[in-house]
């Protein structure tokens, strides 16, 4: 039945849970486009036949046109919703996607991600004299300083008064919250409850 491959793409999206993106279904998209081409070609000859005087072709033309619209909607929704998830990833993973996640993106999606990165960065640079990183300060600030433990060797880290701290695995530090938040979000540091 027409439209089956298209709805399969949508079910695939629905199965993705909290941002885990499946690989781009190149084959599925290709098959839907092929189905559309076949439907369009058949419609062309039925329209041609009707012009020649055939009378019983119009129901099929109407049917195929409906299937074409359906396939188009599913394809565009498949692309659009994947871009929604890739957009969310920028805000969760940061401007560089981990390799395994990036592996699931199509080439065009990677290009889109780079474009999004660039326009987001240039927008944020316009905020105030030296820009405002909107991907930080994601929850209301609590006490100014927090105690953290390193989950891995990270090396030099410059604290707010210019002095630098060496972050070795399992070492513990008392750092300015707003400076170490990004490292906590990335899983480099762990916030130890006071």
């Amino acid at each position, binding site marked *: 039945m027409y439209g089956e491959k298209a709805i399969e793409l949508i079910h695939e999206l629905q199965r993705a849970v909290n941002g885990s993106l499946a690989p781009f279904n190149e084959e599925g998209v290709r098959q839907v486009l092929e189905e559309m*081409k076949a439907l369009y070609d058949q419609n062309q000859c039925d329209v041609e036949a009707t012009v020649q005087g055939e009378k019983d072709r119009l129901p099929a033309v109407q049917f195929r046109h409906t299937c*074409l619209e359906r396939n188009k909607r599913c394809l565009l929704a498949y*692309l*659009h919703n994947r871009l929604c998830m890739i957009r969310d990833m920028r805000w969760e993973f940061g401007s560089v996607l981990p390799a395994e996640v990036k592996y699931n993106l199509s080439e*065009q*999606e990677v290009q889109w991600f780079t474009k999004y990165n660039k326009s987001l960065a240039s927008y944020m640079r316009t905020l105030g*004299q030296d820009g*405002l990183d909107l991907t930080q300060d994601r929850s209301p*600030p609590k006490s100014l300083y927090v105690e953290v433990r390193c989950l891995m060797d990270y090396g030099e880290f410059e604290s707010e008064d210019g002095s630098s701290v060496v972050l070795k695995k399992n070492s513990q530090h008392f750092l300015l919250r*707003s400076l170490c938040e990004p490292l906590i979000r990335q899983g480099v540091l762990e916030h130890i409850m006071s």
Partner: protein
Amino acid sequence: MSEEIDESLENEFSSDEEEVEMTAADVLLKLEEAWLNEKFAPDLLESKVEIVECMLEQLQQMEENVKKCKKGDFRIIVHKMEIDRIRYVLSSYLRIRLRKIEKFVHHTLHKESTRGPDEPKMLSPEEFTFAKEFAESLESNSNTVVLRHMPPNLQTLDKQKLVPKPNLDSYVFLRANERQEQILIEPELEDEQNAEVVDIDAGSQYIMRYRPMGSLVASGAVSLI
């Protein structure tokens, strides 16, 4: 403490709408109200670019003041905490706007293009640039990946009909800043008996659909909570 933080922050800020001088504290209150309104309104509200710019300036100034303080000065931590709090409100406010711009990008750009010269702008110039780039990137992705491979009569996208729009009938909580009279709650119900007219007292709190209250939120008569 060798240097005092000399100039007080009572610097005068005059915004063009009303001529009254607004203190930094007033601007901060306005920013917080704009933040909550934006957070709860389903649609994108007017740009408060002057308030944002003023606050960014204040933060910049305060951060410089704090750098002048000597290590261990009592005020460093207090100023830094306030700076963190204000920066949180600012970035949360701008994030919420950005998300709405992205979610309704074609709708927003269309609405902005139909606004009169005297009408207040929805987008700041920088937001407008971001929105255009974002809309363009969506379109080029759809075009390159699927649309150009489709039969000729299907290759265009009717942008106005098919694009996501904010749900203006969403329910919101609000508080009236001033008394409002004769507010129509269900304007689009033709049968009269369902169309309710309500008087709202100052300070009262309500839950109702956003649509009838949208203009009152914009004018500041009510605030979303």
